[in-house]
């Protein structure tokens, strides 16, 4: 029996997004700029929720006493990823959380980073 046959494709210039956009942009002049948060940006609460905070914000701040990725926040709160990015953006603007941006593949990831990942996987 012969398996079905595929045909290789060439890289399309322009389909690769500018990795710069994955970093969190805060401090828009009107404070409403939506940060293009990555799924694995690590969010950490900087303070307790103020009494005026919305229930979703309070819950998020409670969850993020330790660093937690945006994806995990979405899973634990049971809210869509896009909703969580809006909540996090509001909290970033209010200085209630900080975001630790992920390492992205700009051209290629750093060799030392990959070596650390290999070493970590070996220990599994």
């Amino acid at each position, binding site marked *: 029996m012969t398996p079905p046959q595929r045909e290789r494709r060439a890289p399309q210039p322009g389909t690769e997004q500018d990795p710069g956009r994955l970093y969190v942009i805060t401090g828009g002049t009107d404070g409403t700029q939506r940060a293009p948060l990555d799924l694995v940006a690590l969010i950490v609460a900087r303070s307790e929720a103020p009494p005026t905070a919305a229930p979703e914000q309070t819950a998020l701040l409670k969850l993020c006493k330790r660093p937690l990725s945006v994806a995990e926040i979405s899973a634990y709160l049971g809210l869509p990823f*896009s909703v969580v990015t809006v909540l996090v953006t509001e909290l970033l603007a209010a200085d209630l959380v900080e975001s630790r941006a992920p390492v992205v593949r700009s051209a290629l*990831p750093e060799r030392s980073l990959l070596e650390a*990942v290999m070493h970590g996987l070996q220990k599994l």
Partner: protein
Amino acid sequence: MDFKNSDTIVGPRAEDTLPDTATTAVKIVIVGGFGVGKTTMVGSVSEIRPLTTEETMTQAGIGVDDNYGSETKTATTVAMDFGRISITDELVLYLFGTPGQERFWFLWNGLFEGALGAVVLVDTRRLEVSFDVMGRLEERGVPFVVAINDFPDAPRYPMDELRTALDLPPDVPMIKCDARRRASSRDVLMTLTRYLHSLTMSPA
């Protein structure tokens, strides 16, 4: 939007929290057709029970911002399972199992653009299901390895025959695996990381 009261939110168990020293996260995407074993692979190597992040899109998949308040369009929920491996006290690796259909990828910012690389999980009973996703990754310049999930009743092709069928360049690694086994899934991730490492050594 339904929201559970904050008192009822179940957060991570104490053993599932990251240390305060965690500063950097990286991600690897596991992609493949429905039922090919993506979630199984995520679960077998993850240090946390796999979690699910969801996104809602309309059937058209465009103009998401315009659809609030519109009753006429059908909303579809797309889910993605993921897991986590702590590499060091500072570095965390996340694994995302994602549907093969590219039209869903834009739902999550930088799903592939920000990933170190991808694992294409293949079931030899439905080899052609993986063709499109491999082409999409090639077009986007996302480095990937191919993992053949060894289902007991799947046709066994020799690896060189599979490489020819998948039209893979000789330097792209292919590996057989059993996604249910932690060691086997770990080897797939090691193969990808080694391959990415080799790409940093070779001239562009």
